[in-house]
């Protein structure tokens, strides 16, 4: 990634941050929530490029969210940055451990086993009173550099925090995708055994990808917990994971910004769908997903890239 693109990205995100005070609060909350989904989808892209689709990414999402909630409740941690760091560390730890098992699997088996692991967490969360059972627990208000902004100020602070996280994720994930390990993803998807013959351990590479994606999912979960001020077991349920895969399909694995735009589109579609047809939002979501897969199989991100190719006549990034 060139310095120019980084500057451009920083300028766009900075502009968004500056526009926040002039934007309705509900829209800011919606965008913040969309960004938390976008962070998770960034992680899914890393796996997706290697041909891996986890149906249980909610495992790490919920781990991050519950870490935030419980750190506040049990240890009185309020600093937002510390909370997010803790959430990421926990998610990485979980991914590191389950990775030894998960990294052995591919394709549908990878998807199913990751689903099973997330459902184990769901089962534990639902049944344990100390973790709030089905009601979940409230998340205490976070502080920023020792300050406790109230009302709209808190929404802005979270939004700016989200922008910072998106920037970090964007730079980091783009750098990883451009690195040798990241570039090998396509080779793994095409033919794993050939990659092994090159002297590279595919299992370890998949383990690494899983851990990175978990870090992003943990960060997304932490942001969602702070933004909603509440966590519940539904965050670990398989429909949550399905939502992440949904956005990945919608956005396509072509580029990182597409993940965030896809997440934003997802939140908007969901908000509109709930407003228009309260009992039928799944119907609308399902139809959008179906149409995307049937007619735009590479995701909406591919449309942007295809256009770029025709304009400048060079290869797609």
């Amino acid at each position: 990634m060139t310095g120019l693109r980084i500057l451009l990205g920083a300028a766009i995100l900075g502009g968004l941050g500056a526009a926040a005070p002039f934007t309705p609060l509900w829209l800011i909350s919606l965008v913040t929530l969309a960004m938390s989904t976008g962070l998770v989808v960034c992680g899914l892209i890393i796996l997706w490029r290697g041909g891996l689709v986890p149906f249980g990414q909610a495992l790490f999402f919920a781990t991050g969210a519950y870490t935030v909630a419980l750190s506040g409740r049990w240890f009185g941690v309020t600093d937002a940055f510390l909370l997010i760091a803790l959430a990421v560390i926990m998610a990485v730890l979980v991914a590191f451990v389950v990775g030894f098992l998960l990294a052995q699997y591919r394709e549908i088996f990878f998807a199913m086993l990751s689903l099973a692991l997330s459902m184990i967490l769901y089962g534990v969360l639902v049944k344990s009173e100390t973790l709030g059972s089905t009601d979940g627990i409230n998340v205490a208000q976070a502080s920023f550099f020792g300050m406790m902004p109230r009302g709209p100020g808190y929404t802005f602070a979270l939004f700016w925090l989200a922008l910072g996280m998106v920037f970090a994720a964007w730079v980091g994930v783009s750098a990883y995708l451009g690195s040798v390990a990241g570039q090998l993803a396509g080779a793994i998807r095409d033919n794993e055994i050939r990659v092994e013959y090159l002297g590279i351990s595919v299992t370890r590479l998949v383990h690494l990808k899983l851990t990175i994606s978990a870090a992003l999912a943990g960060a997304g979960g932490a942001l969602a917990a702070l933004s909603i001020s509440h966590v519940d077991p539904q965050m670990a349920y398989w429909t949550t994971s399905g939502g992440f895969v949904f956005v990945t399909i919608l956005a396509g694995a072509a580029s990182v910004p597409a993940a965030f735009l896809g997440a934003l589109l997802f939140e908007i579609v969901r908000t509109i769908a709930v407003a228009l047809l309260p009992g039928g939002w799944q119907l609308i979501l399902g139809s959008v997903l179906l149409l995307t897969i049937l007619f735009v199989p590479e995701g909406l991100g591919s449309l942007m890239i295809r256009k770029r190719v025709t304009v400048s006549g060079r290869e797609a990034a």
Partner: protein
Amino acid sequence: MITVIAIVTDGLVYAAWLFVVAIGLTLIFGVMKILNVAHGAFYAFGAYAAATAIGLYFDRGWPVAGGYLAIATAAVAIGLVMGYILERVFLRRVYGRDEVVVVLITYALFLILEDVLILIWGTDGRSAYQPYTEAGSFTVGGLPLSVYDIGLVGFAGLLAIASALTIKRTTFGRLLTAVIYDRETAAAFGVNVTRVYTVTFLIGAVLGALGGALTAPKISVTPGIGVEVIVLAFAVVAIGGMGSMEGALVGALIVGLFRAGAVHLIPQLELFSIYAVMALVLVFRPQGLFSRVQPRKI
């Protein structure tokens, strides 16, 4: 002692139900390589169709025995209609695409059908307990046993035998086996693979609907029952080995008994126990208990 008997009987009843649902799922996966999330919708629609049929039938005060026929008819009818539409309109367009993409298609269909279900039947729960209570119950060693539950276990047993015989003895079963082992070779030998796919999907859909219909008298039929069952059926199929019928049977028994054990001994671990067993089995047998070794492509 009484706990042990309770665990075994509960476990068997639960396993019977799981088997009926899971065998349809594993059949579709084995033949078509489609992990059909919409199976949960077949189940839910089957349950609702049965509940409606039971309501209509028993309101008229007709003989009880016919009520069971009404359940079966409703399930078969709705399974055939839904299976046909889904296969013809949607799945046929994506044969040959990535397995994961096809899963997502069925996931999208599942989301849509969940809401279609609410549009048709509304959000209120329905109960259709008459077939369950009319069947009566008796007591063994201080433990009440429902005749309906015993019938369910018997039905699952018959289904297991019938499917084994169909696979081994009939022409269609042999065609299925050929397609399961190698679709392209089977096609080269003149097997009409498209037709086998359609028939398989219809059978799977009917079995899913039947699973729901048989459960309807035992539970309050509410929206969302499909979500729960699909994840359980996945666990069963993954334990047994995806695409394996005997695997579905053994997987259903394992999950059924473990869950019953958890419910009676440590109720907090009910859901956890099922997935813990699944994870444990997969650690030692990554492809499930009854899967064939897959050759790797170099």
